[in-house]
């Protein structure tokens, strides 16, 4: 009785039930997301060994694909759903003490649905179903960005909404063009028939779909919304948007490129786009004075790095890309969560206002520092292991071009190190040296952030622990024939 469909249905049902629970008691609603994602985490962990043995195809309504919708629970899907459940669980624990104002029950419903949408996107095996879950993800993030209701939040939300809805229209248009040519919406069936039509006619829907998904994934020319939206949302939501939402968008892009269109010639373009995204993100982050905008630009840089790694199109490169996604989710999540309380106590987002806070809030500052070290890529944290793996993957291809690009990426890492150390310097080594009364973040938030730290160190020290699932995930992307065969039978 462990059916992967419960990963989507249980949080959805709890979200539907939440308004009634709120009428009965206003105190217990904030524990419901914790429960939901604890359930998802346990279920995902239980499913991992089964999925590694054999892919699970869930037929919804009992109809065979391509006639019904199916979920494709492969290594990639289960890897992402575990990651989503883990981040969702920890952030919802953090939110117990962080969310104190505003319409709280609506926050929890939107939060549940945001992560349900993300889980749906990574598990579904149907193109239109992907669109529907993608919209759930997008619409709940529009609403959550505007949750605080201040000037910045509303403005960034409306910018995000305009760009996102154009993107989703383009995505739907692309799906419509594909349906018109192939007459099916099932991803495996599309992938099976994609070679039967001429390449210019595939190219147009592919561009539409990649553009539509790329807006959420924040690929370089399409990421104008990201710094505003990620910096204006409540910090717990910024952690989810940076750690989960853009990576789910990137997952959708690479799933479309690898599995559906089999467009490996397109990946060369993506390598350059990735490096460009990395450089632009890091350079913009360097000149920021607002800490959350700095972190948001740093996310753009990390997305560029992941794109570069996956576009290498080798087993090692793709698994390195997934590893970087995991370490980015943990690291950036930790950074946003700790910054949330730093901002809460100082009342300002300016980096200059953090001077001397290392004495006032030593634990939170330490957690921030660990997150920053992991993102920059210092040993023994997870960021080091993943960046090292990316460099190794690029060098083993043996091509001169990739070796040159590795140099550019290292330059980006140096810039990244520079701006993070600037912040750390202002936290510890500036401002008054007097002993100030300590004013720490609440215990429950510290616990949740410490679990992030433990995971970062654990994965950094034992990268082999997740090597198997990363390898199977990479082979799922490379062997698209297996994907088609396991769905269509």
């Amino acid at each position, binding site marked *: 009785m462990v059916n992967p469909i419960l990963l989507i249905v249980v949080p959805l049902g709890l979200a539907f039930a939440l308004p009634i629970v709120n009428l009965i008691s206003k105190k217990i609603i904030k524990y419901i997301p914790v429960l939901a994602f604890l359930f998802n985490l346990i279920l995902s962990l239980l499913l991992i060994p089964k999925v590694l043995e054999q892919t699970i195809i869930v037929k919804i309504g009992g109809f065979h694909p391509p006639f019904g919708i199916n979920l494709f629970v492969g290594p990639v899907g289960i890897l992402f759903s575990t990651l989503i459940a883990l981040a969702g669980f920890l952030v919802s624990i953090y939110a117990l003490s962080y969310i104190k104002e505003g319409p709280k029950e609506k926050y929890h419903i939107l939060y549940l649905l945001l992560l349900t949408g993300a889980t749906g996107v990574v598990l579904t095996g149907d193109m239109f179903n992907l669109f529907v879950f993608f919209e759930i993800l997008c619409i709940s993030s529009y609403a959550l960005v505007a949750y605080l209701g201040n000037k910045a939040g509303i403005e960034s939300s409306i910018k995000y*909404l305009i760009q996102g*809805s154009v993107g989703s*229209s383009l995505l*739907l248009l692309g799906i419509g063009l594909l349906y018109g040519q192939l007459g099916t919406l099932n991803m495996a069936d599309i992938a099976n028939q994609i070679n039967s039509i001429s390449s210019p006619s595939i190219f147009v829907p592919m561009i539409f779909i990649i553009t539509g998904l790329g807006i959420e994934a924040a690929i370089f020319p399409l990421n104008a919304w990201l710094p505003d939206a990620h910096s204006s949302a409540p910090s717990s939501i910024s952690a989810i948007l940076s750690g989960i939402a853009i990576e789910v968008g990137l997952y959708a892009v690479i799933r479309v490129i690898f599995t559906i269109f089999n467009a490996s010639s397109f990946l060369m373009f993506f390598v350059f786009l990735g490096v460009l995204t990395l450089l632009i993100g890091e350079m913009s982050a360097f000149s920021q004075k607002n800490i959350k905008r700095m972190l948001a630009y740093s996310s753009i840089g990390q997305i560029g790095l992941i794109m570069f790694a996956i576009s290498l199109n080798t087993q090692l490169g793709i698994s390195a890309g997934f590893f970087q996604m995991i370490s980015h989710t943990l690291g950036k999540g930790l950074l946003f969560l700790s910054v949330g309380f730093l901002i809460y106590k100082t009342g300002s987002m300016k980096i200059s206002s953090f001077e001397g806070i290392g004495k006032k809030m030593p634990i939170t500052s330490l957690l921030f520092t660990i997150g920053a070290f992991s993102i920059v890529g210092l040993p023994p944290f997870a960021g080091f292991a993943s960046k090292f793996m990316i460099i190794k993957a690029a060098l083993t291809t043996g091509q001169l071009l990739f070796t040159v690009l590795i140099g550019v990426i290292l330059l980006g890492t140096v810039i990244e190190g520079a701006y993070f150390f600037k912040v750390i310097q202002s936290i510890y080594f500036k401002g008054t040296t007097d002993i100030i009364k300590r004013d720490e973040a609440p215990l429950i938030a510290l616990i949740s952030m410490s679990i992030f730290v433990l995971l970062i160190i654990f994965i950094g020290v034992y990268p082999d622990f997740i090597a198997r699932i990363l390898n199977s995930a990479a082979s799922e992307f490379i062997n698209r024939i297996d994907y088609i065969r396991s769905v269509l039978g």
Partner: protein
Amino acid sequence: MEFLSNYIYYIGAFGLIFIGLFIILVKHNLIKVIIGIGILDTGVNLFLIAVGYISKGTAPIFSKAGLDANNMVDPVPQALVLTSIVIGVAILALALSLAIRLYKHYGTLDLRKIKEQRW
């Protein structure tokens, strides 16, 4: 003339899509941009319906005996459009509520004047 009668739905659908995109790209008033989003959605929906049409087809409903199944239009795009309309409604509702809040904050809906957030 035959070309026009064959492709009139496609032309209409893509005409709406381009009008919508053009409004979103060029106009500065937020309400006009939201209207543009609505027109864009409508265009996409019309395109999806046009994809499923077959010449001289009927609705795919077996309401009485003797209806020819070969003459019915493709039901899948209709189901997709139902979903897509609902998504369009959801986005429009959210956009309008944000417009209300934005107007309360700034006293204007001109997107050129709303520049709190900078690069």
